[in-house]
């Protein structure tokens, strides 16, 4: 196992001013009894609402934060105690901030990392060439980071995180703010990295497209602990989100009355009907067609976003 967390927890003590001199101590359990095993070569979706404890747990995995309880091993190391050793085994990319040096050209940032991570020269040259080619960075190497677009910067950050051949790559919102093309580039790159190099990837994101396109296994964190851990497909079926039948009628009219379905929205001649995921759609369509003048129909599957929302609210 590359990451093994057992009953991992993190509590913060907050001091809040309640009066002129009085202070109130409150304890916040950011992570509690979190259990997680990630095997080598997995591409894991690590998701959950804001403040659920995703970032806090990842900071513990990377050795930035010390756990308050439980045990944690990453790549056979104890993150806090073996922080420097661990640092050479992991790569981290934050979508919202850069790990590069703002004023330095990409090339100089990479040169600094070369020394920081004590990457052997041949290895460094090989990796740099590989990622520069894959991510099309050649023309940007002499540009200071502050002058790069968000998509270019993200490609630079990905390269920076991978030059030392980390066993595990943590990505925090790697596609946030990117345009469609840049998103596709990043996703394709990650899929290939995982497939070809066997790099373990832990992907935190609010963009559920990322998850649908990349991850088979999904871990949902809620209230500081694991709310779901399993295959994406199972998650989708477990939370029985309704499907939606969209019907275009011959003329606008009052909400339809059909057994087994509820109208959720009316817009002129178009109406939206929610019906259970396991109900027979064909029967429903024929029931509508038998009573009303039907012009067109379409069925929408619940998207992952809806599934997650249901999971959080339950």
């Amino acid at each position, binding site marked *: 196992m590359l990451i093994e967390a057992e009953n991992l927890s993190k509590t*913060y003590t907050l001091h809040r001013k309640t009066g002129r001199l009085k202070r109130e101590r409150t304890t916040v359990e950011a992570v509690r009894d979190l259990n997680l095993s990630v095997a080598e070569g997995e591409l894991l979706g690590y998701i959950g609402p804001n403040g659920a404890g995703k*970032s806090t747990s990842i900071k513990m995995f990377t050795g*930035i934060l010390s756990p308050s309880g439980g045990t944690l091993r990453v790549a056979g190391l104890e993150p806090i105690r073996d*922080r420097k050793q661990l*640092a050479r085994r992991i790569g981290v990319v*934050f979508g*919202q901030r850069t790990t590069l*040096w703002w004023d330095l050209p990409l090339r100089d940032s990479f040169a*600094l990392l070369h*020394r920081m991570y004590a990457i052997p020269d041949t290895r460094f040259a090989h990796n740099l060439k590989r990622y520069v080619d894959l991510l099309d960075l050649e023309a940007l190497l002499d540009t200071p980071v502050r002058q790069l677009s968000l998509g270019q910067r993200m490609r630079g950050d990905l390269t920076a995180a991978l030059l030392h051949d980390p066993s595990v790559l943590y990505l925090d919102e790697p596609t946030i703010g990117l345009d469609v093309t840049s998103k596709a580039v990043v996703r394709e790159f990650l899929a290939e990295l995982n497939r070809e190099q066997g790099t373990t990837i832990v992907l935190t994101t609010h963009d559920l497209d990322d998850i649908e396109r990349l991850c088979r296994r999904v871990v949902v964190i809620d209230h500081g602990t694991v709310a779901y851990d399993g295959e994406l497909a199972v998650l989708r079926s477990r939370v029985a989100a309704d499907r939606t039948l969209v019907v275009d009628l011959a003329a606008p009219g009052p909400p339809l009355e059909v057994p087994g379905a509820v109208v959720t929205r009316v817009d002129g001649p178009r109406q939206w009907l929610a019906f259970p995921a396991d109900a027979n759609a064909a029967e429903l369509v024929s029931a509508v067609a038998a009573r009303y003048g039907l012009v067109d129909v379409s069925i929408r599957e619940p998207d992952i976003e809806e599934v997650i929302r249901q999971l959080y609210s339950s």
Partner: protein
Amino acid sequence: MTVPLYALIARQSFRRYVAYRGAMLGGIVANTVFGIIKALIVTAIWRQRAVIGGYDLADVLTYTFVAQAMIGPMSVLTNNLDIPSRVRSGDIGTDLFRPVDFQAYWLAQDLGRAAFSVVGRSVPPFVAGALLFRVRVPLDPRVWAAFAVAVALGVLVSFALRYLAAMSAFWLLDEKGVTGFMNMLTMFFGGLTVPLVLFPGWLGDIATALPWASLILVPVNVFLGKLSGAALGGAYLFEAAWAVALLAAGRLVTIRARQRVVMQGG
């Protein structure tokens, strides 16, 4: 040849300041103008008495312009470390997971900054002062070499003090009170506002024993040739002892900060 990591960090920091060299112009002008004003004031004071605190007029004029030249390298007026802003933005997380020594990483960056400051900001005010006033300029290259060592040790002390102040950002939402207070202490006890030789008896004794004496007073005394042989060794030892003690305090603070780090902004 491979450059050692921390030397490379210092060099990149140096380059970073080269990229922003335009911003230095204001500093140069201000340091020069204030140097001239201070020179006029000390000239008026020394007219009353030929020697004060062992300094004659040429000594104190030299002090004045060397002090102006030290403002940049010793970062007397500002904290100049990005630690607080990186704590606030959460970028500090990047610095914390790197396989480097956190304190040494910031020291290396600060040395790069100071080196650039010597080249880019120290020379003009001093040259202006030497042209306009009767300033002593050592001719013996050994004095210049000894001066360089005293300045380097002074930069270490300066960094160690500013680092302690900047690290308060890990505990406080707004560290400006602490860094501002530190800057004020540095200006006063460093002898930038009033030359340390003008401090009366007991205050002078205290001031010359405090770490800030390493920033301006010790380098100036070396520059004036007042320290040589054993006295020079003693002065170096004084600077080095403060540097070691304050850097050690910084290490303890760093360990504590790591234990309680709460990254802002997720």
